[in-house]
């Protein structure tokens, strides 16, 4: 899965992560890698255009802070608008996956 982060579910994944805590870019990459057992391996630089666009849309806000390593990093924080957007995208995503599962699972699964 190399296309990865430009795809439609990227914003959903990023918002979902940022709802848990504030991250800087490199941490996000590491976190996604770990959680997806390295299935999502994308070019790391591609996360930044997405983050920057989310910031210009007001979904996240960035600020500078010292990381655990003692170095200053640019952190991203989810906004209220971002949380609303997350709820919306989560709902769409659930509907989508349930529908796919229903198709894959056959008639019996689809009509409980």
């Amino acid at each position, binding site marked *: 899965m190399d296309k990865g982060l*430009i795809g439609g579910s990227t914003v959903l994944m990023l918002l979902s992560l940022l709802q848990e805590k504030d991250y*800087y*870019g*490199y941490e996000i*990459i*590491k976190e996604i890698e770990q959680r997806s057992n390295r299935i999502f391996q*994308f*070019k*790391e*630089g*591609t996360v*930044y*255009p*997405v983050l*920057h*666009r989310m*910031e*210009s849309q007001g979904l996240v806000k960035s600020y500078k802070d010292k990381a655990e*390593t003692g*170095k200053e*990093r*640019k952190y991203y924080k989810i906004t209220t608008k971002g949380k609303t957007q997350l709820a919306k995208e989560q709902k769409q995503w659930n509907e989508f996956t349930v529908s796919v599962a229903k198709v894959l699972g056959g008639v019996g699964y689809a009509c409980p």
Partner: protein
Amino acid sequence: MRVPDWEEYLKQVLSHVKFKYDHNSIYFELRDHMEDRYENFLKEGMEAEQAKKAALTCMGDADAIGEELNKAHSPFLGWVWRSIRTVFIILVILNILPFLSLITSGFISIFESYENKTDSSLVYSIDLDYKEKIYDTTLIIDKILYYEDNTLEVRYATWTNPFSNSIKWNSSIWIEAYDEQGEIHRGGGGWKSGSYYGRGQRSLRDIPSDTTKIVVYFGQNGEIPIDLTEGRVMANES
């Protein structure tokens, strides 16, 4: 940490981002990322040189990322934002300047730039320091001077509020002179600078020395009579 290959890569990414004012923050964010990745590789036991290369490969295509970043950093919105800020600052400054000048009339003298008449010597002057606000424009009449060659001169300044939405009328003044018998029609000339804040000089030729009054006309309704018999400072006495 500076790695030549990284620098080149970052330069290539930034070459696509048209809004230059965001270059700095993008540069550091991407470079910090590569540094973190590099250190991670070292921790995993990779050789330094190899780790530097690998960190670069992990980033992905510089052109693709640069183009995406350019879309995220819209130069149009960026410039609109910067322009609005600049205009706002200028307007704030413009609005503070006349405020100062009205409080301390000395402000005007700091930028004194009236032309002094050289072909004739002064007979008398009247320091007026007259201020009147006419709608959105403040007229300040500084001084009246009378010369031996019968020229009468008025020195003045105007300040117009830049926030007002009125039609900006011609903010120069017009003078008529009067003696006991009534109005004296005479030719004259003058100049006026500035549209928001500006000063000007206006003169009338062949004005008799016994002229008692002038009327300064300003804007549509401004009509300011000035008595020439009061407050005279004779030049040869001082």
